[in-house]
C-alpha cells in the first residue's frame, strides 16, 4: 500500500488536500483535508446580530451572496419578519445571478482545463479541447469570463457590488429598482442568453432544459457543452466517481409561492420531506472538540494540537445519521427534473454532476428572466423589523454548490451562537464516529489511479465543485 498526497489541489475555491491510500493501483481509502482554519463562528459571538450580514459573506468570495441570503433568512426567522414579496424576488434574482456565474466559473476555469492536458493527446477531441479549454489562454475561458463579468452587472444594478454586498436584508433588498433598472436588467440577461445560446449550448436554452434522457444528453453535439459531452462519452465519465445516491436540497430561492427549486431528500427513487431537526454535526475526525450536536446547540472549539484521529478542520454533517450529497445535481433531482433523475438512477458520477450544473444554468437563465419580467416598480422591496433581545432562527438556502445553513441564537440582544454548515462541509466531510466516509471520500474509493497527478482524481474531486473557504469558515 502506498500513500499519495495530492496538494496543493488547485482550481477549487480555497485550500484542499486529498490523501489516498493506494493498493494494486486503486484507491483503498481516501481522506479529505480542509487545511485552513479561520474561526468565523467564533468571530460572530457577542456581536450585534445585524453584523452577521457583514461578516458571513466574507467567509467566501465566490458564494458571498449565498452567505448573505442565509444570514438574512436566519435573522428574519429570529425577528419573526418576512421579506416583502417583491423584496424576496429581487433577493432571488441577485442570488440566482451569483449561482449562474459560479456554474460558469466552475465549468470553464476549474473543471475543463484538465481535458487540455497532454496526457489526453491522441484523443479525437483533444485538439479542440486545447483550443477551447486550456487554462488561462483557452478561447472558451476568455469568452466565459467576459460573459460572467457582464452578467454580474446585475450586481452593480441591484446589489451595489459583488462580492460582499449588504443589499440583501431580512426584510428584502435595500435598493428599489425602477423601470430604468428593469429595462437594463432585461438587457443584461438578453446578452447572457446570447452567450449561452451561441457559445455554451449552441442552441436555445429551452432545448437543453427539454432533454430527458442521458442518451439524448450525450448526443447533444453543440457548443462547448457538446464538446464536454463528447469527452465525457469517450472517457466514460458517467461511470467515474459515483455518489452515495442520497441527495439533499434545502430548496432554492424562497418566494411567497414557495421555492423556485424544491426542498427535500431523494434516495433510490423516493422523495421525502426535509427534516432540518435531523441534522447533526459530528466532530470525531475533525480537529474540533465537543460532542456531535445539532447546529442550534453546536460549538466551534478547534483542537489546536490537531490530534489524530482528526485529519481536517471540517466537521462531518449527517442527516438522520447518514451522509448526503448536495449541489446542482441534488437540486435538480429533488426538483424532479427528468434528466437529473435519470442521471441519478444511472449512478450520479462525474458526468451527472457536471451535466446537472449545465442544466441548472439553462433553467436559471429562464428563471432570472421571469423574475425581471415580474418587477413592479410600484412595489415595496423591503419590510422593516428589529432584531430581538432573545431568539433564534435558521436560514436554509441553496448556494451554487448546494445546501447552506446558518443557525443563529440571540441572547441579551447579541449573538450567543452561530453555526454554519456549508455545501462542501456535506460533500467533503471527513469520517464520522461510525466510520462512514464523506461523499467525496466514498466517491474516490475504488478509483483506478496512476502517476503523481492522477487525472481521474482531478475529475472526481472537481465534479463536486468544492468551495473549501466555505467549508472551513
Amino acid at each position, binding site marked *: 500500500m502506498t500513500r499519495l498526497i*495530492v*496538494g*496543493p*489541489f488547485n*482550481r477549487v*475555491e*480555497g*485550500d484542499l*488536500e486529498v490523501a489516498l491510500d493506494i493498493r494494486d493501483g486503486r484507491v483503498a481509502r481516501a481522506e479529505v*483535508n480542509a*487545511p*485552513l*482554519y*479561520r*474561526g468565523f463562528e*467564533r*468571530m460572530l*459571538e457577542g*456581536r*450585534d446580530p*445585524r453584523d452577521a*450580514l457583514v*461578516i458571513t459573506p*466574507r467567509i*467566501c*468570495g*465566490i458564494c458571498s451572496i449565498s452567505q448573505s441570503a442565509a444570514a438574512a433568512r436566519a435573522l428574519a426567522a429570529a425577528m419573526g419578519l418576512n421579506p416583502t414579496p417583491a423584496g424576496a424576488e429581487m433577493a432571488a434574482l441577485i442570488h440566482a445571478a451569483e449561482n449562474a456565474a459560479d456554474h460558469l*466559473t466552475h465549468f470553464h*476555469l476549474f473543471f475543463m482545463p*484538465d481535458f487540455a492536458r497532454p496526457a489526453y493527446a491522441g484523443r479525437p477531441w483533444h485538439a479542440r479541447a486545447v483550443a477551447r479549454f486550456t487554462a*488561462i489562454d483557452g478561447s472558451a*475561458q*476568455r469568452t466565459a469570463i467576459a460573459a*460572467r*463579468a*457582464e452578467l*454580474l452587472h*446585475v*450586481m452593480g444594478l*441591484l*446589489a*451595489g*457590488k*459583488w*462580492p*460582499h*454586498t*449588504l*443589499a440583501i436584508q431580512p*426584510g*428584502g*433588498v*435595500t*435598493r*428599489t429598482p425602477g423601470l430604468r433598472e428593469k429595462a437594463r436588467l432585461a438587457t443584461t440577461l438578453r446578452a447572457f442568453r446570447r452567450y449561452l445560446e451561441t457559445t455554451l449550448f449552441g442552441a436555445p436554452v429551452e432545448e437543453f432544459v427539454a432533454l430527458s434522457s442521458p442518451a439524448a444528453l450525450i448526443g447533444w453535439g453543440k457548443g462547448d457543452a457538446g464538446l464536454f459531452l463528447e469527452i465525457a462519452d469517450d472517457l466514460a465519465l458517467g461511470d467515474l466517481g459515483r455518489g452515495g445516491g442520497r441527495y439533499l436540497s434545502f430548496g432554492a430561492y424562497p418566494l411567497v409561492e414557495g421555492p423556485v427549486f424544491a426542498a427535500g431528500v431523494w434516495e433510490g427513487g423516493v422523495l421525502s420531506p426535509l427534516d432540518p431537526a435531523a441534522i447533526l454535526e459530528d466532530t470525531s475526525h475533525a480537529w474540533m472538540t465537543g460532542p456531535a450536536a445539532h447546529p442550534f446547540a453546536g460549538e466551534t472549539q478547534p483542537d*489546536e494540537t490537531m490530534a489524530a484521529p482528526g485529519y481536517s478542520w471540517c466537521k462531518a454533517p449527517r442527516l438522520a445519521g447518514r451522509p448526503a450529497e448536495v449541489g446542482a445535481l441534488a437540486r435538480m433531482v429533488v426538483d424532479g427534473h427528468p434528466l437529473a433523475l435519470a442521471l441519478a438512477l444511472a449512478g450520479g458520477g462525474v458526468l451527472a454532476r457536471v451535466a446537472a450544473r449545465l442544466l441548472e444554468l439553462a433553467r436559471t437563465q429562464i428563471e432570472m428572466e421571469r423574475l425581471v419580467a415580474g418587477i413592479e416598480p410600484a412595489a415595496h*422591496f423591503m419590510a422593516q423589523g428589529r432584531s430581538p433581545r432573545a431568539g433564534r432562527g435558521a436560514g436554509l438556502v441553496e448556494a451554487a454548490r448546494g445546501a447552506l445553513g446558518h443557525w443563529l441564537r440571540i441572547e441579551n440582544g447579541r449573538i450567543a451562537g452561530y453555526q454554519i454548515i456549508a455545501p462542501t462541509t456535506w460533500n467533503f466531510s471527513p469520517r464520522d464516529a461510525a466510520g462512514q466516509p464523506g461523499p467525496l471520500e466514498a466517491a474516490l474509493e475504488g478509483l483506478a489511479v496512476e502517476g503523481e*497527478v492522477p487525472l481521474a482524481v*482531478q475529475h472526481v474531486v472537481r465534479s463536486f465543485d468544492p468551495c473549501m*473557504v466555505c467549508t472551513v469558515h
Partner: protein
Amino acid sequence: MTTLLWLQAAGCGGCTMSLLCAESPGALEMLEDAGIRLLWHPALSVETGAEARALLEDLAAGRRSLDILCVEGAIARGPAGTGRFQMLSGTGRSMMDWVLRLASRARHVVAVGSCAAFGGVTAAGGNPSDAVGLQYDGALSGGLFPADWRSRAGDPVINVAGCPTHPGWVTETLVLLAAGERVALDGFARPRFFADHLVHHGCPKNEFYEYKASARTLSEIGCMMENLGCIGTQAVGDCNIRPWNGEGSCTRGGYPCINCTAPGFEDPTHAFVETQKLAGIPVGLPTDMPKAWFMALASLSKAATPDRIGKNAHADRIVVPPTLRRPR
C-alpha cells in the same frame, strides 16, 4: 516579460473573484497586454499537486525569477505561532512559511485586499487564527514582516486594500509595476491613485448629505451618515468615481460604506449599520472637517433643507422631482 505568482492565504478568495469582473479589457487580457506572465494562480492555473509544488520550490530557491508576488488573504500565525491553521496543502509547510520564503525572492510584493494588507475580516472578533497582514497588524506597522522590511526593488509591501478590491485597483497597480513605474503610496502603503479619493466623492447621495437629509432605515434613499453607519466621508477609495460591476457601489446599492479599505474596519465599536453618536451627534466627522464648523454648517443646512430633498430622503424612491426651470 514580468513574472507574477499569486497565492491565496487566509481569506475568502473574493479579491480574485472581483478581479475576474474587470472589463474593457478583461483581467487576463489586461495582464497579457502589460507583458505580465502569470506563473501560477491557485484558481486559474492548470498545474496542481506535484506540478505546482515543483514550481513553488523553484521560485523559493531562486531557480526561477519572480517579479511580483501577490498575496490574497491574511497570514494565519496560529496556533501558538506555528502557522498550522493554514498549511499549504501537499507541502507540509505553513502558508506563513511559504510567504516568508517567496517574498524574499520577489522584486515587488503586493497585498491584495484588506486581509493581506492589515489582517481584515480574518482578524475580526478576537482573531481566532492570530491573523495579521503582510506588513501591518491592523493599523500598527509591522505584520508578518517588520516595519522596515523592503522588497528587492526597495518598496514596502504595496497594500491594495479593499474588501473586496476593485478590479481596477489591482490591475492598474500591476500594470504600473510591470511598466517600471514607482507606485506612490499613502501612510498605510495604499496606492494613492485610489486612496487619495474618498468614497464620498461622487456619491449619488451628496445632495442629501449637503442638507443632512438622512435616511432613518435601510431602503430610504437619504444620506446614511447620520443614522446608518455610513463612513464614506472618511473612507478612502474611488468607489463612487469609477463604478463596480457596471454601475454599482455600496452607497448606490442603498447600504452604507463600512470603510473596507481601512485597517481595523472589521471591528467597529458599534453595529456596522448604525452610527455611533454622542448626545445625538455622530462621533465620526468627515475627513479634514473641523468639528465646530461641521456642527454649525450641519445645523444650518438641516434647517435649510428644501421640501423635495426632505421628502425624498425618507422615501424608498424619488417621490418629488426637481422643480423645472424654463429658459427665458
